[in-house]
């Protein structure tokens, strides 16, 4: 396939239906790196994580009030016997809209309903903004990189606190650092309230910290160290699984991270109440020197974990890990070793300057051959860009990707969505795409799919697709067939 046709789908988000193909695809991609906008209008107009945390706090408070009132009423023994606090990871997105009351549970109060709606609306608005930017962007290579990194540093909205904050992580930590150093992005992500809440860092307390000692004397056993974030930083965000770290490194890193928390979610004696968001709380930080990957960190307070992160960000294992993931995303499910080596080298020589890696990708022949199977997000966005659909109602957007099997920001695990065909090229998923394409075709209006396919794929269009489009029984059916053609399913 020639570069003019492959470029917009491999590197970008799929060609826009009306746009002329790029004259020089490689130069065009490199120019995008200069033109990229960290905060385009739909995103700039959203509230930041501060106001979102206030709304989230209100929802949590209302829920607590309701439970309290219910327990006090004591009219139903079964309700009183049920666990007073749900496990943190339990509430699903689906549970957020006013769910019917369970037996023995009072119907949600109007205040709780409103608070839940506010939380859900933050999510829907963020999904809509992300989609809106993707649909119209003229720097789609940069936008693909945003999506790549957001998936590398994945949070998942199957946890209540993450529902309103997942978008903010992408908008506040990923986007501003897209053209910077890997270490800058890493630090911004690990300090973001969404990540601190998702991987339980916010509750992690150093056993020998002031607060830890007080709690220990009072016999509060649940207060203590949580290793979740420390482990996932080593395993997923930086070095990679089964590389150079040990359990001892995880524990030591977790100790160093204590104090990195989120203010504003609930009344607190140790946290500031006037500025919701990430804070360092010295009263819960584990004092003392730490030993991580054989290196001693004697810094005090927040500087300690910062120093560890800075070293992790330029570690050779990190370079290899990031190089492998980028190569998998832009070249092939089985990353070509030569490309991985080139990316790794660029990472190490520049200290993880991300644009240097992006240039290697554009300049590498491995990224200009073969085909990647589009995941549902990629496919949905590419389909809408091809049809020049510029905007979509928030609920419809969220619903579309859920139906296609990839709810936005809900990979279900901190490992993010899988980046290989095996995860997405499944029978039912394919059927759903065909059904969705049928519906989109019906609503697409007057579009000649034959001409569109010609414009987007030219002479590379396969005979099978050409025959299918020419023989379709209606323009709407031809649009549907084009959207699920082998060409459109891949990038």
């Amino acid at each position, binding site marked *: 396939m020639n570069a003019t046709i492959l470029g917009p789908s491999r590197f970008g988000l799929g060609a826009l239906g009306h746009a002329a193909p790029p004259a020089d695809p490689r130069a065009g991609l490199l120019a995008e790196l200069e033109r990229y906008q960290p905060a385009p209008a739909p995103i700039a107009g959203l509230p930041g994580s501060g106001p979102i945390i206030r709304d989230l706090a209100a929802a949590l408070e209302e829920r607590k009030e309701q439970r309290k009132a219910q327990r006090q009423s004591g009219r139903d023994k079964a309700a009183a016997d049920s666990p007073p606090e749900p496990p943190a990871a339990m509430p699903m997105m689906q549970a957020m809209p006013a769910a019917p009351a369970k037996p023995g549970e009072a119907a949600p109060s109007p205040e709780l309903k409103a608070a839940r709606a506010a939380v859900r609306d933050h999510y829907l608005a963020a999904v809509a903004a992300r989609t809106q930017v993707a649909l119209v962007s003229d720097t789609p290579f940069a936008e693909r990189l945003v999506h790549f990194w957001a998936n590398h540093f994945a949070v998942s909205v199957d946890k209540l606190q993450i529902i309103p904050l997942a978008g903010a992580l992408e908008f506040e930590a990923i986007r501003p650092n897209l053209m910077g150093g890997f270490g800058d992005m890493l630090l911004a992500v690990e300090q973001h309230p969404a990540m601190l809440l998702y991987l339980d860092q916010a509750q992690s307390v150093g056993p020998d910290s002031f607060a830890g000692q007080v709690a220990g004397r009072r016999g509060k056993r649940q207060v203590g160290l949580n290793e979740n974030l420390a482990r996932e930083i080593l395993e997923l965000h930086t070095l990679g699984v089964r590389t150079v770290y040990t359990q001892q490194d995880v524990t030591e890193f977790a100790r160093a991270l204590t104090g990195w928390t989120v203010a504003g979610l609930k009344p607190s004696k140790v946290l500031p109440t006037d500025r919701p968001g990430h804070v360092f709380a010295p009263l819960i930080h584990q004092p003392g020197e730490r030993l991580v990957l054989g290196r001693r960190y004697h810094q005090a307070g927040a500087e300690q974990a910062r120093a560890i992160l800075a070293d992790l960000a330029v570690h050779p294992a990190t370079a290899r890990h990031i190089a492998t993931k980028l190569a998998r995303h832009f070249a092939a499910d089985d990353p070509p070793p030569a490309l991985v080596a080139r990316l790794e080298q660029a990472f190490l020589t520049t200290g993880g300057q991300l644009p240097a890696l992006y240039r290697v990708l554009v300049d590498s022949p491995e990224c200009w051959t073969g085909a990647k*199977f589009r995941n549902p997000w990629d496919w949905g966005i590419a389909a809408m860009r091809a049809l020049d659909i510029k905007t979509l109602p928030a609920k419809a957007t969220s619903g579309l990707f859920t139906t296609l099997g990839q709810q936005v920001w809900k990979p279900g695990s901190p490992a993010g969505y899988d980046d290989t*065909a095996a995860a997405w*090229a*499944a*029978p*039912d998923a*394919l*059927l759903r795409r*065909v*059904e969705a394409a*049928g519906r989109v075709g*019906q*609503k*697409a*209006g*007057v579009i*000649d799919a*034959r001409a569109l396919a010609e414009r987007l794929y030219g002479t590379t269009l*396969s*005979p*099978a*697709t050409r*025959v*299918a489009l*020419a*023989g*379709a*029984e*209606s*323009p709407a*059916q*031809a649009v*549907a*067939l084009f959207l*699920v*053609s*082998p060409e459109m*399913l891949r990038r």
Partner: protein
Amino acid sequence: MLNRRQILTRAALVTAGSFVPRLALARPGTERRFIFIIQRGAADGLSTLAPMGDPAYAGLRRELAADYAGLPLIGGMFALHPALKEVGGLYAAGQALFVHAVASPYRDRSHFDGQNVLECGAARPYQLADGWLNRLLPLLPAAEARALAVSATVPAALRGSAPVTSYAPSGLPDANEDLLQRVSRMYATDPALHPLWGEALQARSMAGDLAKAKPGGAAEAGRLVAQMMQGPEGARVVMIESNGWDTHSAQKARLNAQLGGLDAAIGALRDGLGEAWSQTLVVVATEFGRTAAANGTGGTDHGTASLAMLLGGAVRGGRVLADWPGLAPAQLYENRDLRPTRAVDAVIAGALAEHYALDPARLAARLFPGGIGKAEGGLIRA
């Protein structure tokens, strides 16, 4: 079941056009109604109204012709497809008029282009941006010009400057099965997608009929449309899209289902419209016909002339209009298709002119500037 007001409210939400005056005073005026049903995909006129009296027919159609053995002939040589029970009843009651061997000016065999010519009324595809049905609306009294498209979007025939609304009842039969079959063909040569798709279809068939259209869906749709055409603020001009007529294979079963659905919808329209049926004109037409001969997969391929049906209490029916061109090899168009001897645009323009008491020549020129025939007369009861 929604009541009519709810349906109208929902319909009004679908498009900005909406029904114009929400509470238009019931003008002392006529109750004339017009329904255009487009059969997308090239419906086989030679099966809908089979020319059993043509000596070449049985040989060309082989097993496809078997269904008509022993059926009574109408117009001296035609047998109506057995699935068309309601339509047959209308014919017997003098409310169905068949016009055979008709075609638009279009002579190639692309569905899109053919439908575009049929719907826009130009001589060539994409020459006109608006459709003939929309151009009709300003010529009608306001009370009779409230137009509705029964589909998710407004189809080309109804597109234009006159306000139109659209509403798609969920029960409308769709071409889902057909789309799936076409996807199968498109993936046949793709080593990764072909097996995946096979599994998907297998799983789907195991899931049973849940994914398929409900039986009775077409009748339900017909009832719904009739309901939306009732009352002083109901629609008076309606376009219904019927998909799934592109029967390249397994035509016998598919056409049986397609015609059965169409027939049920028409029966439901007649019942639902009640007294208004007597002043209703329904035109059923398709972009082109199918090959005279059956192909190797139990179906037929894209052809040229086909059948148009005029139905309703307003129609001077009980007749077949045909200058039968014959099906012998020398009589076929390009040695393969039924040769067109009448113009579908002349039929539609002529019927509408009589239905709405408009000047036939001027109406034909306005609706079908690319038309090839003189507006036909004597189609509607005086």
